């Protein structure tokens, strides 16, 4: 491909005290592509995307944003740069309303003289319509997130990221709690968003979901990249084996009658 990457991560290392969570991971994301990040539990996927989203500062390595070296000091900087993230633990505040959660950090304001007040009308309307696009009909935008089901919460987080992801959208296991219809919705949303030229980083454990929308696939294992393959270069079976470390998986699959 000829397009320049939006973000290029080179040899990213991240240490948590004695724990080496990332040990030299390279990754890039180009406009209009969906780059899937795969790997076992604890492989370092969430840690990796958190360095991309400004939550963690990498211990080593470089981040290039639009070709320029970049240091995100906080998630806010990354958000300003047009990177929106759905975190694995969703980053929702259960005691607060759906609208307040949706707009958290970038609240719409209305000026009254020298004062700025929250513009609840716009906020509520946009929240409701974005949620409807994702196939969830909220009872009220004022209801607390704590009253939503797990999948509904996940959908709010996704709708929020889609709304704010101007350049890059990072989705950390966004479909783990979703029903069939909502999952299909998220996958088609990924496809729709990708067509607008936004780069998508999609973390999942489900090879079928990855295969359905992915343009490239990168597999992480124990803090290192096992490799990157483009669509068509790799079969679902090969990808599955790569994710689980091959051999053992074949043995396990045998004992389960090939159902996994």
């Amino acid at each position: 491909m000829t397009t320049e990457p939006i973000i290029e991560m080179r040899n990213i290392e991240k240490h948590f005290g004695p724990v080496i969570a990332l040990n030299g991971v390279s990754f890039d994301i180009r406009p209009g592509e969906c780059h899937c990040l795969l790997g076992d539990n604890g492989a370092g996927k969430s840690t990796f995307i958190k360095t991309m989203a400004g939550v963690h500062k990498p211990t080593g390595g470089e981040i290039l944003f639009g070709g320029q070296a970049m240091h995100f000091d906080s998630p806010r900087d990354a958000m300003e740069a047009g990177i929106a993230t759905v975190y694995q633990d969703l980053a929702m505040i259960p005691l607060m309303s759906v609208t307040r959660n949706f707009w958290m950090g970038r609240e719409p304001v209305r000026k009254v003289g020298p004062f700025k007040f929250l513009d609840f009308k716009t906020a509520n309307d946009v929240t409701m319509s974005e949620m409807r696009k994702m196939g969830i009909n909220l009872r009220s935008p004022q209801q607390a997130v704590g009253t939503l089901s797990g999948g509904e919460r996940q959908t709010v987080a996704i709708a929020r990221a889609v709304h704010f992801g101007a350049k890059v959208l990072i989705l950390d296991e966004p479909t783990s709690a979703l029903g069939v219809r909502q999952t299909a919705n998220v996958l088609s949303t990924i496809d729709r968003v990708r067509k607008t030229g936004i780069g998508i980083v999609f973390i999942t454990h489900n090879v079928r979901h990855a295969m359905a929308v992915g343009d490239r696939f990168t597999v992480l294992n124990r803090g290192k990249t096992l490799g990157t393959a483009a669509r068509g270069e790799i079969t679902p079976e090969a990808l599955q084996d790569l994710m689980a470390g091959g051999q053992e998986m074949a043995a396990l699959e045998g004992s389960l009658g090939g159902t996994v």
Partner: protein
Amino acid sequence: MSKTDATVDERIKETSKLRKALIRPELGAIVGTIAVFAFFIIFAGNSGMFNAQGVLNWSTVSAQFMIIAVGACMLMIAGEFDLSVGSMIGFAGMSIAIISVTLGWPIWVAILLTFALCIAIGALNGIIVVRTGLPSFIVTLAFLFILRGFTIFFPQLIERRTIIGGISEAAEGDWLAPLFGGKVGGGFFIWLGDLGVIEVFSRGTRAGQPVVDGIPMLIIWALGLVAIAHIILTRTQFGNWIFAAGGDAQAARYVGVPVNRVKIQMFMFTAFCACVFATCQVIEFGSAGADRGLLKEFEAIIAVVIGGALLTGGYGSVIGAALGALIFGVVQQGLFFAGVESSLFRVFLGVILLFAVILNTYIRRIITGER
């Protein structure tokens, strides 16, 4: 199913307007307020509690509670406590006294310096809490002792006593002092007195003047702080961040809320409120004492909890906290009017606290879906 285009959800029961209006964080405090007023109208109705002087009496006491409750409320919603509020009140009063009386500087300088000092100490509390990750309970408990210690030590060192008077003289003719110790609406009360709506003194040097000669600035401060804090909390971006910081600091950080800054600012605001309280108090009493403000932090926290705030943060209401403070003031002064043993104040307060909190918990579960 045509759920995607339906605007109403068929899975929700119709709720009555009344129920909707009632299900709010302040409900416990509203019910408590009504109960308390009903109680005293019945048992102390003719005791003078509800004439002009009586109303002024319990309003002033309630306003004191309100000022510190507003600060405690905002801080608690942001997920932190400040147990040093009471000591801060003593400390601020003493600071004003030492600067104005002992050093002889103008009282406005003393007031401004004291505000700067207290807000800086509030910021220090906040910085220690967010940097170390220690519970604010412990950090501010340390400051409870540190500030009280200084409040006793300095006047003894400098003046060889623990009460410093002469503040009224120092405040004479000052431009800033009336903002804390003055009264407003004097003309209005004279007019009311002339109309016979409120009583006038019949004898003495003030014969013919109304028994209430104005609303103390303390009450204006209380109402002003409540109104401003309520608007900030419910209507602004910053208010959203305060809720978020207390609701789930990590989630808030992920979406770009500057949680540490918000928390530090709330510690500073709490210190500011304590300082307003202290300034009004020293100017009214004309003196500063080393034991002022004792236990005020707990009274503030109780008022806030009666008002519907969650001790663990992320949920609460300034209006509720103000009503909690009103309950406090009315009960404390009301038992005096009713001629009841003042120790019963505590019994009564304990009972109200328990009932309000049980009601609040029930309401909160409905609103937030806590399970």
